[in-house]
């Protein structure tokens, strides 16, 4: 190690940081007796940046040299930045040594396109292969699948990586063409569809044969840049919904556009749309874990998420006829739709009510945010004084104390 590696690390982690996916979750790789590391269920955040994002993986580019010129990207060909490239060995050493010291859960390796897609992909694969085979590394590996790389290379990547991702970046093809003339949706969907098929195929095989090899057990993900192009939340969330349903994606990440680019093809944003980004994550969460359909969150009448209210509260206020919910009898899924009640509280309610009917005081102790929930529930206290209020009044009540918190609770979703 020397000064040069430090400099490369600075350049190539700085260039990788706008890819917001950080999670090391969703895989399940056991360690061997003489191996290093594992990855199980929830990944660990080993540190947090000052902007409050989780640091879980060594997230770097192999190189920021790129033959493309995507307007939204710091590494674009026409941008005047310092360029660097790691060797395979350097990335392997950094990963192993950071992992041994408990700094990270694994490696997130992406890259600018150097020479051509296959040349680049081949190196990414070689790093993953060396880690797995020579160093018996069983920690988390996330590789970027480079659009345009051959199916064979993408396939090999899946044999070593826990997760693969291909970024759509721009939420509509029309906008993509404007800001990234060399790209098109077809090139991105090709590896994505290949992965979707292969992942499903291997899963089937694993059901039949226990010891069948793993292929990207953590699935695939993608990222959408928000606020750089004119798409509404309706379009963004419907696209995400399709990706979950059709391509079986594990995660869609939303990255509020950080106005770093001076490229004239990009809008002159003053600020990163962090609140909107946060609302999109909440909406995404509702689709994946709360059983909400996408059209219950955004539709032609409400094409944009409410920036002031979380989407679950907004849903409740738009649909007063679905409330109140009887805490002591309603199904779990119905309870989950009450503002102020999260997954944990809902589970506790369902467990606790077997032992006796619940009152407000119990709900409070269980962790329900009564300030929000009280407008939407009935329990053993039959006061009813908070029911039947005008949605507009409830909205006002919601906005008062929480306003300043909105930005802070970036991922700490619903109470």
């Amino acid at each position, binding site marked *: 190690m020397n000064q040069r590696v430090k400099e490369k690390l*600075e350049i190539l982690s700085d260039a990788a940081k706008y890819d917001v996916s950080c999670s090391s979750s969703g895989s399940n790789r056991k360690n061997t007796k003489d191996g290093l*590391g594992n990855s199980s269920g929830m990944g660990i955040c080993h540190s947090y940046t*000052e902007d409050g994002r989780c640091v879980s993986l*060594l997230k770097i580019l192999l190189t920021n040299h790129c033959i493309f010129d995507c307007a939204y990207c710091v590494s674009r060909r026409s941008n005047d930045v310092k360029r660097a490239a790691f060797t395979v060995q350097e990335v392997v050493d950094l990963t192993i040594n950071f992992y041994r010291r408990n700094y990270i859960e694994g490696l997130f390796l992406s890259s600018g396109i150097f020479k051509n897609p296959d040349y680049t992909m081949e190196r990414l694969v070689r790093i993953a292969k060396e880690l797995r085979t020579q160093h018996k590394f069983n920690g988390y590996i996330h590789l970027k699948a480079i659009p345009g790389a051959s199916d064979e290379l993408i396939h090999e990547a899946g044999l070593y990586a826990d997760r693969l991702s291909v970024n759509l970046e721009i939420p509509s093809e029309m906008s993509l063409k404007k800001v990234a003339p060399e790209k098109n949706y077809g090139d991105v969907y090709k590896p994505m569809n290949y992965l979707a098929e292969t992942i499903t195929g291997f899963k089937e095989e694993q059901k039949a044969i226990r010891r069948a090899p793993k292929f990207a057990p953590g699935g695939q993900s993608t990222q959408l840049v928000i606020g750089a192009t004119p798409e509404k939340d309706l379009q963004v969330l419907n696209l995400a919904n399709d990706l979950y349903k059709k391509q079986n994606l594990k995660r869609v990440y939303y990255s509020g556009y950080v106005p770093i680019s001076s490229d004239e093809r990009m809008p002159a944003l003053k600020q990163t749309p962090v609140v909107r980004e946060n609302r999109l994550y909440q909406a995404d969460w509702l689709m994946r874990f709360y059983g909400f359909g996408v059209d219950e969150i955004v539709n032609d009448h409400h094409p944009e998420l409410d920036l002031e209210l979380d989407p679950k509260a907004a849903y409740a206020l738009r649909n007063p006829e679905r409330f109140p919910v009887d805490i002591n009898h309603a199904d779990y899924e119905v309870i989950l739709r009450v503002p102020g009640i999260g997954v944990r509280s809902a589970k506790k309610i369902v467990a606790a009510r077997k032992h006796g009917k619940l009152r407000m005081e*119990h709900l409070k102790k269980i962790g329900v945010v009564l300030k929000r929930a009280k407008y939407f529930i009935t329990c053993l206290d039959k006061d009813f004084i908070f029911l039947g209020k005008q949605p507009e009044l409830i909205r006002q009540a919601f906005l008062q104390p929480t306003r300043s918190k909105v930005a802070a609770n970036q991922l700490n979703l619903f109470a």
Partner: protein
Amino acid sequence: MILTYDGTFSGLLSVVFEVYRLKITVSKIVPEDEWQSNFFDQATYVETDSAWADRVRKGIEKKASKKIANTLYQCFLSEQADISMLLFNFIQKLFDSPSDISDNYGDDTVLRIHQIKKKIGREVHRMHAFVRFQRTKDDIYYAVIEPDFNVLPLLPKHFLDRYPAQKWLLYDSQRRYGVYYDLHKTTFITFEDDERLQYRQLNESVLDQSEPEYQILWKSYFDSVNIPERRNMKLHLQHVPKRYWKYLSEKRQQF
């Protein structure tokens, strides 16, 4: 009746056994070394008997689950002032009720147990996250911790799963004991003179020569992944409360 025991988990379970065997009404349970006798109160000491303790544990597992039995052990490590009595109350409720009350969150005792367990879980998770090993000359990966609760006994499994092929030592500098893994087994250890181990940052003379470099590389990585345009210290502190900063070499200023 006031009962004292030797301060171990087995000891506490033995107390439970005695209470049921002799049908005692208990007013207080305290570890022997915390008990201060006075003129009015007399305490009775209960011997620890691992066979009794085992039977109580089995009883808990049968009535509730293995998971709850483990939960109780974790709560025991919380060092809360009234933890002995709280655990006793919980076990008594469990044994005396016809059904499994361990998920009756409407009950205060049950709820408190779950709350303490949550706190312990959070602390364990933070240790998994924030431990930073330093590689020494004799190839031991070493880290100092000062957890809010006595969670060290809960840590080895996690690190064993991850690092079966390197030697490591975790040392609790406040409670003055550690756990050492020598590539074959983990052992709890104490040192007569632990002055050197008190230091979070080991002296360079005992470190592997590559160690300072990796600490610097890690810090420069940490600094360059930050996005200043998105700075949000409130959220940052919510994730990493100040008292944990001391663990994080990337947050140290001087290098």
